[in-house]
């Protein structure tokens, strides 16, 4: 565990009871320390990132040439379904919760999270859920094959694997709700004197808003999949047309959860960007207050745009227009954020260390993904592009260089603080450039495939799509294997990296850089720092 590495005995004082009693294995299960739990979340999500990535490579291998080579269609459908669920609920969300655990107490000057035991519980809930989800591949009927959206009637058919998936999502939902309650309570009640809300680092702000989104929409998902479960086993007919139910209703309820979920995956990434870009531009963040309001606006708007996922379902034109304009409206606060980051960099003394490379990559690629999202928001265009590879390209542009690169940037940025050691800068840059090139080789051609009409979630395709699919698969394998550089870099940093300075990035100005040594001691801010009268940190 990384926490074992960052645990520095020199910094221990009167806390022997907390971590000298149990051995390392007991400690994994019983720890309530936010740094331990943060590390556990990050390691877990890294593992799941590779599990989900392996599934993605199987999918791309099947699509390398037309025809069926690697997997059968049923397995292919399960792979696309579970790849998405693993990446969303197993990789990206836990990784951001890991960052929240590590950083929020440090950045607001609190000793730990508000409910440390609940924190431990919310991490450990994820393990049985993940086991259920992965084990569903090996039961009769295989894993859920309805796509991650679990649309009926596909999801009301399926075997026991679908039930396992539903239960897994229930447990993961409970875990994220507990994590969010912890985060909100910590932020609202445990800030150091003088750390007013409008002085909090942007990462804390974005997580506060994200956590509210999670506790608002996770119960909706829970209700939705519970109805699915009762339709499957208890003779209800919420979504079963034969019994008077309506499959379209599932889509409405699911996307009422699903669209805010999209922002749950990206808002903390915005927070990490807002920490890294000012640091390497050596300028304060441009328009801090507008960043806070833009984040809140995005969160509120996310509740009224779900219909754009289902333009083709047969809604009235008035409904389509409403959802189209509401969706386009989200581009305004998002644009505010993009322009603020660019304005932060404007005339800054920029240097291009690995975190900054990933941040700039994020800015370019996320904006591109945002634009293809705007294209899809136009109803007549969406009707032709619905369920094509254009959509696949769009959401991978906002999720991979969006969420994942923000996480990578964040890990490179905070590794020196967490471990007290520096990562290998050259390897980090290689990691970035290989990822940037191979990502675009993988996903840019998928725009063309989608425009040419190739449907998603199909294991075979017409011959005219062969060339771009081949290129996309080559890119995907390069992208997948480039990530091994990241793993190597993290391990070698922990084991033998150069000693990091207390303030490794000289312009980083949140509390963990200005008030704490590197590596961060096991216990911090038992006495909250007095920030009253101090200059604002951003």
């Amino acid at each position, binding site marked *: 565990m990384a926490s074992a590495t960052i645990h520095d005995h020199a910094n221990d004082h009167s806390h022997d009871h907390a971590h000298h009693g149990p051995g390392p294995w007991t400690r994994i299960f019983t720890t309530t320390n936010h740094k331990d739990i943060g590390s556990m979340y990050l390691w877990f999500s890294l593992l799941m990132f590779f599990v989900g990535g392996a599934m993605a490579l199987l999918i791309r291998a099947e699509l390398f040439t037309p025809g069926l080579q690697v997997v059968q269609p049923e397995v292919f459908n399960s792979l696309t379904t579970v790849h998405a669920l693993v990446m969303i609920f197993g990789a990206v969300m836990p990784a951001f919760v890991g960052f929240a655990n590590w950083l929020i107490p440090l950045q607001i000057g609190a000793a730990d999270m508000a*409910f440390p035991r609940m924190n431990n519980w919310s991490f450990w809930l994820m393990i049985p859920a993940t086991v259920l989800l992965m084990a569903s591949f090996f039961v009769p009927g295989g894993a859920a094959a309805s796509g991650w959206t679990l649309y009926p009637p596909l999801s009301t058919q399926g075997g026991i694997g679908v039930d396992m998936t539903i239960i897994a999502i229930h447990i993961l939902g409970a875990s994220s709700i507990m994590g969010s309650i912890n985060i909100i309570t910590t932020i609202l*009640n445990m800030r150091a004197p003088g750390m007013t809300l409008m002085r909090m680092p942007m990462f804390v702000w974005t997580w506060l808003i994200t956590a509210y989104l999670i*506790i608002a929409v996770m*119960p909706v998902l829970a209700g939705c999949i519970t109805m699915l479960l009762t339709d499957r086993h208890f003779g209800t007919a919420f979504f079963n047309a034969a019994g008077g139910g309506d499959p379209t209703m599932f889509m409405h309820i699911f996307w009422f959860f699903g669209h805010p979920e999209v922002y749950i995956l990206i808002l903390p990434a915005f927070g990490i960007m807002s920490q890294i870009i000012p640091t390497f531009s050596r300028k304060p963040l441009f328009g801090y207050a507008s960043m806070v309001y833009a984040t809140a606006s995005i969160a509120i708007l996310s509740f009224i745009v779900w219909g754009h996922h289902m333009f083709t379902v047969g809604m009235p034109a008035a409904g389509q227009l409403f959802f189209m304009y509401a969706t386009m409206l989200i581009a305004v606060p998002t644009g505010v954020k993009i322009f603020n980051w660019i304005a932060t960099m404007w005339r800054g003394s920029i240097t291009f260390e690995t975190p900054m490379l990933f941040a700039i990559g994020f800015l370019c690629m996320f904006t591109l993904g945002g634009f293809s999202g705007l294209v899809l928001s136009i109803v007549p265009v969406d009707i032709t592009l619905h369920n094509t590879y254009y959509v696949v390209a769009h959401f991978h542009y906002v999720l991979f260089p969006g969420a994942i690169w923000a996480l990578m940037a964040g890990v490179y940025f905070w590794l020196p603080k967490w471990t007290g050691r520096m990562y290998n800068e050259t390897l980090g840059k290689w990691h970035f450039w290989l990822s940037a090139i191979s990502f675009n080789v993988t996903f840019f051609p998928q725009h063309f495939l989608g425009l040419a009409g190739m449907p998603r979630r199909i294991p075979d395709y017409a011959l005219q799509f062969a060339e771009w699919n081949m290129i996309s698969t080559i890119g995907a394998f390069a992208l997948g294997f480039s990530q091994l550089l990241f793993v190597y870099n993290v391990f070698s940093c922990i084991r033998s990296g150069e000693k990091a300075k207390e303030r490794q990035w000289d312009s980083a100005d949140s509390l963990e850089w200005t008030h704490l040594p590197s590596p961060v001691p096991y216990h911090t801010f038992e006495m909250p720092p007095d920030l009253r009268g101090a200059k604002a940190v951003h």
Partner: protein
Amino acid sequence: MSVVADDADVVNPAEVRENNRATLKKLLLILPVMLAFCLSLVPLYRQICEVLGITATRAVAENTQVDRSRIVKVDFDASLHGGFAWKFVPVDKHAEIHPGEMVTIHYRVTNTLPYATTGRAVPSFAPVEAGLFFSKIECFCFSNQTLQAGESREMPVTFFIDPKLPAKIGSIGLSYYFFDVTEEMKKAPKDPA
């Protein structure tokens, strides 16, 4: 929300714990509210679709086969074969309809006997020629209807009149004649189906 009194440098842990618990309670309240919202979408969804006139197939195609320039009067008649102790009456005595329009009317039949009996209805048209243009989509005729002692049943007839109905026919009489087939049923060999 600040837990620190203005003059204190030290955060009071008991106070923080109390505040945390209060926040926890408020946040937990959101969960049932959102769950209730989710479940209330089930009836709400149906209501909204009904109010806005959204049906599953979006625009219900207008039936262009209806000849609105014509009205045909249809009389419904019910009679029983001699001595059959059922009560048989049309619920709708007559209807004025456009050719091409789909219409559903009902008959009511009651078994007044203290034991189960089976009847079978046969339709007839006046004028007979009208039968060629009278299409029944759903009807109780020609099939055996078994009624328990004292049982009463409402039976629909769904039909439309072909717009090619000759202009000279301005009204049609539809008559059903119920036969008692109880004895015949007993004699008949068991249907293997």
